[in-house]
């Protein structure tokens, strides 16, 4: 099949970008979308032109490295599928495709379709963990976890941190991503101790990164390759409300001194 690509090219963070059109003939429909781009790049190389930079690693939909917008849809037209798992059979011969990077101020563009998602890491660093120093854990079966809870936690934990939710959100909000981690850890008994603190810290970091705010459009859920649901955003909202209501209930921290 033959495809026409209109691709965003941008030399680096500081340069202006623009769309460049490429023709891609002889594309097999068994190729993945990224393999199609590989072929286009090999042909560019032959012409001594700079290949299109795009991120990918696992190419099996789990590492969350890949991602760009195809014809206005993050990760392309197929539901619950990352671009690396998208195959050309999802398109028709003669299709014209516009390919753009994730666009959000919190995800600055590094080059072409590659952007910087370090903001996600900082949100996790702010509280997306359970403090459990190595060596201190009780037996794995000491705390039973209801199957529903562990299954729900797993649903939320399936997030691959790709950033498509931000890319698709009309407000460039990172709420689906953030809420998924809060729901994962908040659903488990192990995660209760830090639950109020966690949501306050992570939301504060999320805001500081310059993401927008959810107004419940639901675009994020529609493009999320891992089927993360908006219900987690609702949970995060209520966790946040509860945490704010109970914040300030702090121990005095008086130390009577136990030395000797």
């Amino acid at each position, binding site marked *: 099949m033959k495809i026409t690509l209109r691709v965003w090219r941008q030399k680096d963070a500081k340069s202006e970008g623009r*769309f460049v059109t490429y023709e891609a003939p002889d594309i097999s429909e068994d190729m993945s979308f990224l393999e199609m781009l590989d072929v286009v790049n090999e042909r560019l190389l032959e012409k001594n032109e700079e290949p299109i930079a795009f991120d990918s690693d696992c190419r099996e939909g789990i590492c969350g490295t890949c991602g760009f*917008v195809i*014809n*206005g*849809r993050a990760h392309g037209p197929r539901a619950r599928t990352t671009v690396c798992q998208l195959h050309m059979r999802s398109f028709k011969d003669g299709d014209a495709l*516009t390919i*753009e990077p994730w*666009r*959000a*101020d*919190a995800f600055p563009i590094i080059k072409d379709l590659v952007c910087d998602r370090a903001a996600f890491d900082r949100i996790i660093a*702010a*509280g997306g963990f359970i403090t459990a120093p190595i060596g201190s854990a009780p037996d794995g079966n000491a705390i039973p976890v209801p199957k529903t809870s562990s299954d729900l936690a797993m649903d939320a934990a399936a997030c691959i941190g790709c950033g498509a939710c931000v890319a698709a959100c*009309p*407000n*460039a*909000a990172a*709420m689906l991503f953030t809420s998924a981690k809060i729901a994962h850890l908040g659903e488990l008994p192990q995660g209760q101790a830090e639950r109020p603190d966690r949501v*306050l*810290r992570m*939301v*504060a*970091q*999320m*805001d*500081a990164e*310059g*993401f*927008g*705010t*959810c*107004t*419940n*459009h*639901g*675009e994020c*859920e*529609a*493009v999320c390759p891992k089927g993360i*649901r*908006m*219900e*987690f*955003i*609702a*949970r*995060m*909202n*209520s*966790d*946040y*409300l509860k945490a*704010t209501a109970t914040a300030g209930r702090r121990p005095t921290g008086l130390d009577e001194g136990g030395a000797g």
Partner: protein
Amino acid sequence: MPEARGFLGSSIGRKIVMAVTGIILVGFVLGHLAGNLQIYLPNGREAMNAYGEFLRHFLHGGGLWLARLILLVAVILHIWAATSLTLSNRAARAVGYRERTWTESTYASRTMRWSGVIVLAFVIYHLLHFTFGTVHPSFVPGDVYHNFVAGFQSVPVSLFYIVSMVLLALHLRHGVWSMCQTLGLAHPRYRRWAFAASWAVALVVLVGNVSFPIAVLAGVLK
């Protein structure tokens, strides 16, 4: 960790303000509609005027002012939150996409700001129209029924009301569901209910309110 900007500074805090003021406003719109529906009673004229009378003397006259105060504060907070969230959302994506394909978001959800602003314009006009009588052709203080029927005699005014109500319905179609989500009704089962509720509220408000100018123009209410 960044300095917490406090509840009102945070994204979710402002969303919650939006939702709580939204509840108050929706409550008012529904209550107001119920009050106005009395006009269809067989003794519509007396009922309406008595209702107006009741409102003005409720809690020795203080009740109305209290309600007005709450409404005013709600409107101000709602507009403040809407504006500040809109600004930060705009700032979150300075460079937009060349192409967009929408899947889940709706016309209603993407036009909240516009529908909101138009509803606000409506309310201002409406106050000048029915409460202060400034723009009313034959305003009679205290005779709510007369003001009502006389007010809708003008076709352009009625049309403006009808258009505004369509936008209000649109605002509520997304607003009510959004409110539930914002306040954390997370269970997938509630999601269906929240959707149903937002459609129901929007339709009731639309049909109920639009019926008034139409009824007057059609000569049902005289």
